[in-house]
C-alpha cells in the first residue's frame, strides 16, 4: 500500500471511530439547539466505564452498553443542572465535564492511563489482516448508530425533540414537559459520545484520561465541514453529512501531516493539530457567512 492510500485508509477508519461523536454533538447543537460542552467528559467516562466493564469480565458488546448508559447519565445530569437548578446552558456542560474527569480517574484506579491486552470488540473478529477486521467492526458500529438515529428521527419522539430545539413553547402546547424532553435529548447525545469513547479505548487498547481533550473541537469541525459541503434539509441527511464532514476533517488532518516532500514538514509540530482544527472550523464558517449568506456555527443567544 502506498502512502496516499494509507492516509485515506487511516482517515476512513478514524472517521468511523469518531462518527458517533459528531452525530451526538449534532443532536445537542443542532437538534436541541443546546451548546452542550459535556462532550469531552462523557467521551472519557465512556472509555473508562467500558474499561472497567471489560476488566470485570463482561463481554465487549456489553461493555459498550455500559458506556452508553454512563453517557446517558452524564447527559441527563447536564440537563438536570440546566432545567432544575437553572444553570446556564454553557456552564451546565462545563460543570459536568469537570466532574466526569475526576470520576474517570477514579474508575481508572487513580491512574491517568490503563492498558488492556485483549478481549475488546476489535478482538472478536479474527482476520489475517487485522486492519480490515478493525474496519469492519468500526463500520458496523457506525452503521448501527446511523440506523438507530434514522429510527429516532422518523418517530414521534424524534419530531418532538426537533420541535423542542426550534420552539420550546410549541412542545408545551403539545402537552409535553420541555424539561424532561431536554434531559432525554441530552442523554441520547452523550450516550453516542460515550459510545465513541468506549470504541476508541477498545481500539487503542488503552484508556487515557486525556484522550477526550480536543474531541469537542474536532467534532465541531466535522459538523461544520459537513454543513458547508451540503446543507441538508432533512435531519437524516444532516446526520449523513456529519459523517461525511468528519471524513473530510480527518483527510484534511492526514494531508496536513503527510510527507509531501516540500521541505516544510520540519516546521510542522504534532501540537499544531488544534491550530489546524481551529482553522478547519473557522474557514467553513466564513464560507457559510460570506458565500452562502448564513452563519449557524454559534447561535447568538448561546
Amino acid at each position, binding site marked *: 500500500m502506498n502512502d496516499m492510500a494509507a492516509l485515506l485508509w487511516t482517515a476512513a477508519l478514524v472517521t468511523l471511530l469518531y462518527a458517533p461523536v459528531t452525530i451526538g454533538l449534532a443532536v445537542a447543537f443542532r437538534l436541541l439547539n443546546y451548546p452542550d460542552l459535556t462532550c469531552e467528559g462523557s467521551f472519557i467516562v465512556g472509555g473508562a466505564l467500558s474499561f472497567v466493564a471489560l476488566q470485570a469480565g463482561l463481554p465487549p458488546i456489553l461493555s459498550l452498553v455500559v458506556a452508553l448508559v454512563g453517557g446517558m447519565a452524564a447527559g441527563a445530569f447536564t440537563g438536570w443542572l440546566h432545567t432544575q437548578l437553572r444553570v446556564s446552558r454553557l456552564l451546565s456542560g462545563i460543570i459536568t465535564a469537570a466532574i466526569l474527569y475526576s470520576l474517570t480517574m477514579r474508575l481508572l484506579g487513580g491512574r491517568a492511563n490503563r492498558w488492556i491486552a485483549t478481549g475488546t470488540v476489535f478482538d472478536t473478529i479474527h482476520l489475517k489482516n487485522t486492519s480490515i477486521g478493525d474496519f469492519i467492526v468500526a463500520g458496523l458500529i457506525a452503521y448501527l448508530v446511523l440506523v438507530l438515529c434514522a429510527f429516532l428521527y422518523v418517530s414521534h419522539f424524534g419530531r*418532538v425533540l*426537533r420541535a423542542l430545539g426550534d*420552539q420550546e*413553547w410549541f412542545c408545551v402546547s403539545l402537552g409535553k414537559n420541555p424539561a424532561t424532553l431536554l434531559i432525554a435529548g441530552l442523554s441520547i447525545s452523550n450516550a453516542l459520545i460515550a459510545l465513541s469513547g468506549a470504541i476508541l479505548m477498545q481500539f487503542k487498547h488503552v484508556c487515557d484520561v486525556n484522550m477526550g481533550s480536543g474531541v469537542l473541537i474536532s467534532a465541531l469541525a466535522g459538523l461544520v465541514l459537513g454543513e458547508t459541503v451540503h446543507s441538508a434539509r432533512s435531519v437524516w441527511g444532516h446526520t449523513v453529512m456529519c459523517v461525511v464532514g468528519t471524513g473530510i476533517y480527518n483527510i484534511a488532518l492526514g494531508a496536513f501531516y503527510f510527507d509531501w516532500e516540500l521541505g516544510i514538514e520540519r516546521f510542522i509540530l504534532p501540537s499544531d493539530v488544534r491550530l489546524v482544527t481551529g482553522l478547519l472550523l473557522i474557514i467553513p464558517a466564513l464560507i457559510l457567512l460570506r458565500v452562502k449568506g448564513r452563519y449557524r456555527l454559534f447561535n447568538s443567544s448561546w
Partner: protein
Amino acid sequence: MLRLKRVSKRFNIDSDREVVALNALDFELARGEFVTMVGENGSGKTTLLRVVTGEIAADAGQVLFGNVDATKMPPYHRARFVTHIHQSRESGLPLSLTVEEVMRLALESRTHGITRRGIHQRAEEQLESLRKGLSRTLKEQVWHLSGGEHQLVNLAVASVFADGPSKGGHILLLDEHVSQLDPVAHSVVMEATDQLIRSRRLSAVMATHNFELAVEYGDRQVVLSEGRILKEFVGESRIRSPRELKDVISNVLR
C-alpha cells in the same frame, strides 16, 4: 369555561421599577364566548393571557378551567384546555419543520393510534377548512410560510387541539395575532379566526390595539387598565364604532 379570581402579578418586586401588571383581577369567559380586550401598553393584557397559559405564575389568586383549579398546574398540562397564539413567528411554530410535520405532531399528541393516512387526511381537511388552497403548504417548511399562512397554520393547530380531550370546550388566546400582517392577510386571518371560534364554539380572548377589530368582532369588549378591568360592554351595549371606543378609553383613563 375560564375564571380568574383576584389574580395579581407584580414584576421587579422590591425595586424602584416595580410594575403592577395585574391587580386583583376578576375575569370570566363563558363557553363559546369571544371577548376582545383593549388597553394601552402595560395595561396587563399580555400578562393576563400568560397567567392563563401558565407561562407566568401569578403572585396571588386562582385560575380555573371549568371546575378544574389550574392555579398550580404546569403549562404543559394546561395545554389540554388552552391554546395561545402569539403575535410574531419567533414565538410561533417550529420553523425548521414542515407544515405536515407540525400538523402531524399536533394530531398525534391529541389522537392516540392515528394512522399515517388518517393524519394526512385530517391535516388537509383542517387546513382547507380554514382557507381554500392552504393545504398546498403541507410540504413546505414553516420558515418559508408568509406571515398570514403562518397564523393560519397556527389556527389549524389550535383547531386540532380543540378536538382533544377537553371535550367541555377549548380556550383560544390571541395576543395581537394579526398585528404584523399586511392588510389582505390581516382580514383573511381574522375571518378564519372568527369562523373557527364560531364553528367549534371555542371560548376566545383576543388582545388587540386595533379598535376596528375590537368593534367588528366578538361578543364582549373589555377595557383593561393598570391591571384591572375598567369597563365591559356586552350585547346591546357593545360599542359599534372605533372612534367611540377610542373616546370611551380616553375618558376612562382620564
